[in-house]
């Protein structure tokens, strides 16, 4: 399946990835190959088979509405590159 560089660029922007020109061409080929394989799978007759959303045949895993201790502010912020008080700090979000 043929994937254009424009499609690669769109997907890269959605994923916030910056790609070089070589990478765009490389990934266009690779994505085309992956989707080509999916095309091949589509040849199978799946009439009457529900789309599989989960590989494990399991349903209804619940928890009760009971409070568990949180991990605490210091642990929560331990990996934060930047913080102010007990907030994470990120580059200004303009709105």
């Amino acid at each position, binding site marked *: 399946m043929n994937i254009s560089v424009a499609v690669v660029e769109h997907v890269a922007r959605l994923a916030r990835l910056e790609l070089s020109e070589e990478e765009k061409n490389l990934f266009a080929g690779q994505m085309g190959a992956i989707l080509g394989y999916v095309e091949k799978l589509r040849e199978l007759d799946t009439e009457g088979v529900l789309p599989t959303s989960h590989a494990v045949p399991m349903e209804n*895993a619940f928890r009760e509405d009971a409070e568990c201790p949180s991990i605490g502010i210091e642990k929560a912020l331990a990996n934060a590159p930047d913080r102010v008080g007990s907030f994470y700090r990120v580059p200004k979000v303009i709105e």
Partner: protein
Amino acid sequence: MRFQPVIGLEVHVQLKTSTKIFCGCSTSFGSQPNSQTCPVCLGLPGALPVLNKKVVEFAIKAGLSTNCSITPRSVFARKNYFYPDLPKGYQISQFEDPICQHGWLDIDVNGETKRIGITRIHMEEDAGKLVHGDVSGLEEGSGVDLNRACTPLLEVVSEPDLRSSDEAVSYLKQLHQIVTWLGICDGNMEEGSFRCDANVSVMPVGSATLGTRAEIKNVNSFKFVKQAIEYEIQRQIELIEDGGTVVQETRLFDPNSGKTRSMRGKEEAHDYRYFPDPDLVPLVIDEAWVERTRHGLPELPEQRRQRFMTDFALSDYDAGVLTASRELADYFESCVSLDVNAKSVSNWVMGEITRSLNDSGTSIAQCPVTPPLLVGLLKLIDGGTISGKIAKTVFDEMWRSGKDPAVIVEEQGLVQVSDSGAIEAIIDEILTREAGQVEEYRSGKDKLFGFFVGQVMKASKGKANPAVVNELLLGKLKGR
């Protein structure tokens, strides 16, 4: 050209659970930033979300109360986008197969009933909160508080069946009443527990094709919803009449200016690439579960309003006011169950009680005049012990002290005087004193009758039985 507005609403209902939708962190409001977080709601690698069963129960309740069908097998999906308040880079929501579908609400528009379709209700997690500027140290950058992240929400999506801002507000108020009535949402719009996005478009009257819509975000009061929709309708009409075209975009309502403005930058992200969340297994709701929930539902506002009209012979209007909230309706019914005239309870609840609650900013649940106290008062009136006028004085005292009305009447000597001898004595005194007015009355100035009644009531400090006063006074003035 005349234009027809077309409006659809997406309402986010924050559910009143103790914990978040996929983890056991508390959902309480106003705690220190990031104190209510754990690996699941922080989106740390390897953390596994597990669904809060109460969220499902609340969602089924909401669905059944808005005439939806409950989807037997529904799945959670990831909605992918980047924003600093969304730690995982995706929001867990539902896309295909939401838990509730194809419902409706009947709204009242200027006395006419109109059915508004509900496309779907789905469960999802809320994002965190961004803080700008108003915290010291945040002059640069924005602060992220993830306490709200993963808080359970229902998103209720209406069909584009609404045709005016009034219809939108009417629909919204009814939905608000239902979710608070069910006890699944605290309904606090200022804190964002019930918030609304409005999709607004206009099309020429008679057209079959919908216009391009703008989505107005997060309007947090009924008043603002009305303002925002009206502004947006006008903006789009003017734009089209000036030869422009409406672009599909997200707009933000600014309550200070009453205007909506474009939110740039959110647009390209509309490619959400939904896919089933592999961390969460499918949700299967069998008929038994639905029926169990249906049986556990309280009587809903509309049913209760109808019943109040039938059982207590109340007017449409009175029944509507008394069923505005479940607490108020319960209060009314507790009174009526104490064997007293429903109409007088209705008058007092809608009158003195409501007025005093409003004046003091008290909720009906905290009303110091409990149903037994109010009924005690009404029985004193019915039995002729006190007059309706004195009852107001007793009521105020009950409100202040919470004392039994009979005790108040006793202590303050407010018992109504019905003894004709005593009243006659007062009347004689007044008629002697006001001889001039008596002459005028007898020469045809009938209106003076009210003056005499007033004088007698005043002289008796409001305690004379008005019926007896009227009768005796009339006899004395006419008869002689």
